[in-house]
């Protein structure tokens, strides 16, 4: 249908599109620009310098929060990816079973339940566990992050599995490979880009979480985003801009990697 409805031809489409882009990107560009400000203000430009990057780098609180963020994101992405692989296999590589679509919905639950609700319920559950066990380490944050990262890790893996030619696995089985060998030698190698993509996405999602972290963390367990939030309530200097810019660059890098990997076709 060559003459079908084309939204691009409607009057005002371009104007609205341009407005949206400005709204989306202008603040980000401002943040990046002022991260290089020489002065103390995040609104008045006084010349270029690396001052705030150096200051952030030397800030021990920032260092600690960064390491904590990365540790949590690393474990959360590993664990959630592992769970996501199992979940994806169970929802694509088995005969249809009772309750399959229910489980599918449950896996994606974190996408639907308001984050604040999850945060509050986790807070309550973990609080009682803390009382019972006395454990107050990073484990709670890792578990919480793992839970909400699973759907993000699950989606690219499932997409990859669904796109895979089932006859390849049948061919392996035809050639005397046991189910485990088939998985190891044929399914897994084909799945690797999906797994990497899922892990990267989970990492980014964990890295910039604020709401759940804010509720679950114990005293002194600031991650980079919650540290920044705390700073904003006090004196705001372009140091925040510098941290944001680095975080932004890192996320863009990972998300780009994610898209490149998701696009990889089977040869």
């Amino acid at each position: 249908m060559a003459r079908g409805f084309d939204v691009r031809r409607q009057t005002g489409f371009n104007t609205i599109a341009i407005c949206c882009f400005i709204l989306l990107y202008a603040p980000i560009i401002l943040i990046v620009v002022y991260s290089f400000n020489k002065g103390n203000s995040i609104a008045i430009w006084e010349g270029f310098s690396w001052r705030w990057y150096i200051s952030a780098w030397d800030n021990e609180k920032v260092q600690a929060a960064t390491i904590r963020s990365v540790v949590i994101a690393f474990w959360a992405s590993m664990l959630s990816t592992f769970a996501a692989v199992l979940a994806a296999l169970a929802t694509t590589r088995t005969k249809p079973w009772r309750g399959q679509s229910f489980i599918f919905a449950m896996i994606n639950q974190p996408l639907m339940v308001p984050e604040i609700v999850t945060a509050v319920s986790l807070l309550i559950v973990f609080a009682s566990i803390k009382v019972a066990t006395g454990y107050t380490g990073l484990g709670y944050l890792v578990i919480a992050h793992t839970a909400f990262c699973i759907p993000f890790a699950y989606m690219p893996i499932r997409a990859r599995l669904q796109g895979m030619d089932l006859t390849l696995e049948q061919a392996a089985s035809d050639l005397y490979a046991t189910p485990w060998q088939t998985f190891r030698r044929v399914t897994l190698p084909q799945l690797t880009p999906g797994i990497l993509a899922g892990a990267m996405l989970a990492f980014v999602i964990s890295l910039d979480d604020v709401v759940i972290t804010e509720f679950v963390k114990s005293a002194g367990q600031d991650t980079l985003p919650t540290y920044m939030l705390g700073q904003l309530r006090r004196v705001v200097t372009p140091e925040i801009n510098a941290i944001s810019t680095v975080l932004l660059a890192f996320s863009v890098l990972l998300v780009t990697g994610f898209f490149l990997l998701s696009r990889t076709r089977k040869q």
Partner: protein
Amino acid sequence: MIEIANVTKVFGQGEAAFRALDGVSVTIDENEFFTLLGPSGCGKTTLLRTIAGFVDPTSGSVKLDGQSLLESPPYKRPVNTVFQSYALFPHMTVAQNIGFGLEMQGKPKSEVQETVAEMLELVRMTPMADRQTGQISGGQQQRVALARALAPRPKVLLLDEPLSALDFKLRKEMQLELKRLQSETGITFIFVTHDQEEALTMSDRIAVMSEGAIRQIGGPRDIYDHPAERFVADFIGDTNFLEVELLRTEGEEGRIRLASGAETTARALSGGVSAGTVTLAVRPEHADLADPAEALLPGTLAEVVYFGTDTHYHVDLEDGTRFVVRQQNTPAQVQRRAAGDRVGVTFAPGVGQVLRD
């Protein structure tokens, strides 16, 4: 060697139930090139997948050398498949693909290497051993798929329309190649195709299938010259169908009276036909044009179609049926006929086939 008895496969349940295989029984011998021939959707792939272990039949038995296969998963059956899509592992080289089965069988490395080299030689792919499967042509992928399935020396090789993705010339080449491989290895081949010519040229025996059932089993000549029923006659080659009167049968010979009143004999399989009105099948190349006065069936020439190697004469018979006569073109041919001429159709006694209905 392979005994398939009364195999039925029903997909789905209740209203949506579909009978893909309906009481299929066939025995395939050692070292045989056996072909399953039939139109798309008749259940060929389902039967093959039942033997390979990817389909559980609803009822019936599948035995190899007297032992039931149905309890074994695919990876325990001494049967290998050449998939229609080849299904080569994209993350492995040609040699790794071929060695996969042997490796999974736990053969020592040296033996794997030796057999892979042998297989590469057999399918003439030695120079391509280290290529990625994405870097070779369709015909070469086909050979690799074959070598991969042959390498573990299965008792039976299943081939699901392995040549359908190839272009005409390559297909002809691979047909000969497959025949050669089958006789060199001595492995039983069960070959699936919907191409009747391919089936006729390659097979020791053919099973013609339709709607989930085997209609006729026989050698290529047998199937072509003596189709047992209308479906087989229609599906394989071109056929003229005539309504005739079967007067009586003696052994496999039947006395028939044609619509024109002329009488002749035709082959009638003893089972399934009884005197009365029956259908007679006559191949176009088994009939001839003749003087209307001396012919079995007089009529009018409606169309002459020239094909290079031969000419098709479309004759309208007196009772209104259209009959096609095929004649080979020879340089000496002088007799020129044109549409509108009064002609007659004749065929020798015994060439017609009375069909079972």
